């Protein structure tokens, strides 16, 4: 029966999608594709774990973890923002690779790379729907969908959301029109960091609590963003879910199971190559 695999795949996929949405909000507003996104999630998860170890109330611990990720994201956006605004999209992304490495190094310094477990209180409660599904997993699915819907509505209907879309479309023009560019960008860094923090905690509960692993889970998350064509929230959600399910189902069959982990990479590569298939030579025309 592949139902357990499909459910597991949907859950993991919803987390890829959740992370993807957080990355996309930042990318669309500032042009920064944050390769340090996994690291932010990892920091949130590690801190939450540490606070729980120190006998803090779990909910408070998670909240602090998420706040930490949000703060780190905001601080980076604050410090690096002015510089990043002046460089190409590729350079922006490369700078975030530096952020990823710094955070990873600090995490490994503070805690080593031992595998730990983050047990959420909702892990123990579950239902049977043909296969067992925990409340945590239901939260993952529900949260991913809810955040996609909420973000979508927010971008479309709220003033700051509209401002974000304006920035995504044309930063300079928006600034001339009086949109508080810096303010909106910092808001994007904040929201992105918060979603990253939440994603990190959930991912660590569903996969592994390991700094290196969680830092580089940004790669499969990126795959979901790719499927969404770097534009569409719903596309990212669907992309994440599809990747998750295909990966999980592939792991169910012995002939494909050892290659199942390559699913996000293969999907992302195919999508990018397909989207870029008709590239046209552009000429500089000084007008």
């Amino acid at each position: 029966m592949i139902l357990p695999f499909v459910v597991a795949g949907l859950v993991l996929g919803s987390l890829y999608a959740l992370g993807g949405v957080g990355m996309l909000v930042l990318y669309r507003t500032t042009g920064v594709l944050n390769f340090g996104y996994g690291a932010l999630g990892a920091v949130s998860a590690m801190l939450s774990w540490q606070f729980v170890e120190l006998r803090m109330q779990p909910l408070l611990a998670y909240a602090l973890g998420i706040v930490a990720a949000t703060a780190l994201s905001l601080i980076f956006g604050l410090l690096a923002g002015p510089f990043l605004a002046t460089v190409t999209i590729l350079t922006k992304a490369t700078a975030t690779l530096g952020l990823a490495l710094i955070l990873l190094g600090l995490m490994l310094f503070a805690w080593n790379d031992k595998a730990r477990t983050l047990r959420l209180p909702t892990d123990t409660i579950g239902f049977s729907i043909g296969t067992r599904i925990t409340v945590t997993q239901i939260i993952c699915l529900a949260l991913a969908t809810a955040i996609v819907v909420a973000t979508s509505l927010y971008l479309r209907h709220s003033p700051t959301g509209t401002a974000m879309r304006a920035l995504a479309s044309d930063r300079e023009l928006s600034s001339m029109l009086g949109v508080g560019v810096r303010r909106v960008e910092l808001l994007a860094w904040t929201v992105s960091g918060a979603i990253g923090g939440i994603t990190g905690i959930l991912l660590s509960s569903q996969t592994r609590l390991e700094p290196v692993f969680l830092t580089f889970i940004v790669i499969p998350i990126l795959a979901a963003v790719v499927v969404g064509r770097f534009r569409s929230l719903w596309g990212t959600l669907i992309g994440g879910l599809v990747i998750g399910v295909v990966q999980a189902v592939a792991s169910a069959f012995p002939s494909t199971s050892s290659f199942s982990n390559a699913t996000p990479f293969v999907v992302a590569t195919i999508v990018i190559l397909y989207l870029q298939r008709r590239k046209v030579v552009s000429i500089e025309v000084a007008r």
Partner: protein
Amino acid sequence: MTAEPRQRSSRVPVWSPGRLLSARNIVLVVALVALLVFGPGLFGAYWTRILTNCAIISIAAAGIALLYGRLGLVSLGQVSLIGVGGWITLRVGHATSLPFELVLVIAAVGTGVIGVLVGLPALRLSGLNLAIVTLMLAGAFEVIFTVTGFPNGGEGFLGRATGGVLQQPLARPALGTTDPEYFRYVVVVTIIMFVIIGLHLANRPGRAWAAMRQSEAGALAAGIGTVRYRLWALAVVSATTGVAGGLLAGNAGLLDPISFKAPASILLFATVLIGGAYSLLGAVIAGFLSQGLPPLLDALGVDGNLIFVILGLGMIQAITTAPRGIAGQLQGLARRIRGLFGKKERP
């Protein structure tokens, strides 16, 4: 990252006595000879092994630098190609009794072909899209290596022998059986690889690549077949990186998939940015940052994990204030010193 490589005018050819026997070249040759002769004795057993790895990785770094510095292409999957070269070397080495040098050549050709085939669909990509695709390919290769493992004397296409008892490491080359000898062997091969890359940069391919980097349209209008030259760059870089893989395989005789994960490619790219993507000196520095700095930190009693922090900070610094990397800053310093002595700027 707006820095660009400068290239000496080719009006006076490289092999003219004036340029060939320049002070800089003579010093370089003397230093290399000294390194080869006295190095292992000077460094001791442990550091000789470390520096062997530094030299090997600097070959791969030179490839990354060529793609990024000269063509503006970010490849975050080069370590996978090192793995491919290592795999081919081990498989062919175990299956035949060809001399190691020939096996390296086969690895170079094999990796070159695979690099071109894999890179062919991505040829039209540039910028962020290419970086992402190469990162994804690195992830895919990581999975493949985990599944196939590396040949260790066993049977079948994959050449895997089950169980630790039956596995056998590949033998070192005849000219480099001991560690000091292998160090010299590796340094010589590294020099050969650097010369090959350098010859490309100084001649027609290098000029064509410079034109393509500046403007695709301008290059086409000059009659340059841009697709052809991109493939050529890919082939050269893949082949030399394959040789690096072969040297790694020859070093320990065995390779572990754990060394060829996607993050390793990201780290290697970081070291190239920091070392300097616009000169071969930068590639040497990158090799040291990658393989020499962690043991150095260890020796100084510093937590080895801080290497990530150093590389991360270095990367951000390279992007913001030192786009030409450490090599660029050293070269700038050298120019200023030469200026102080009143020497005319070389043409």
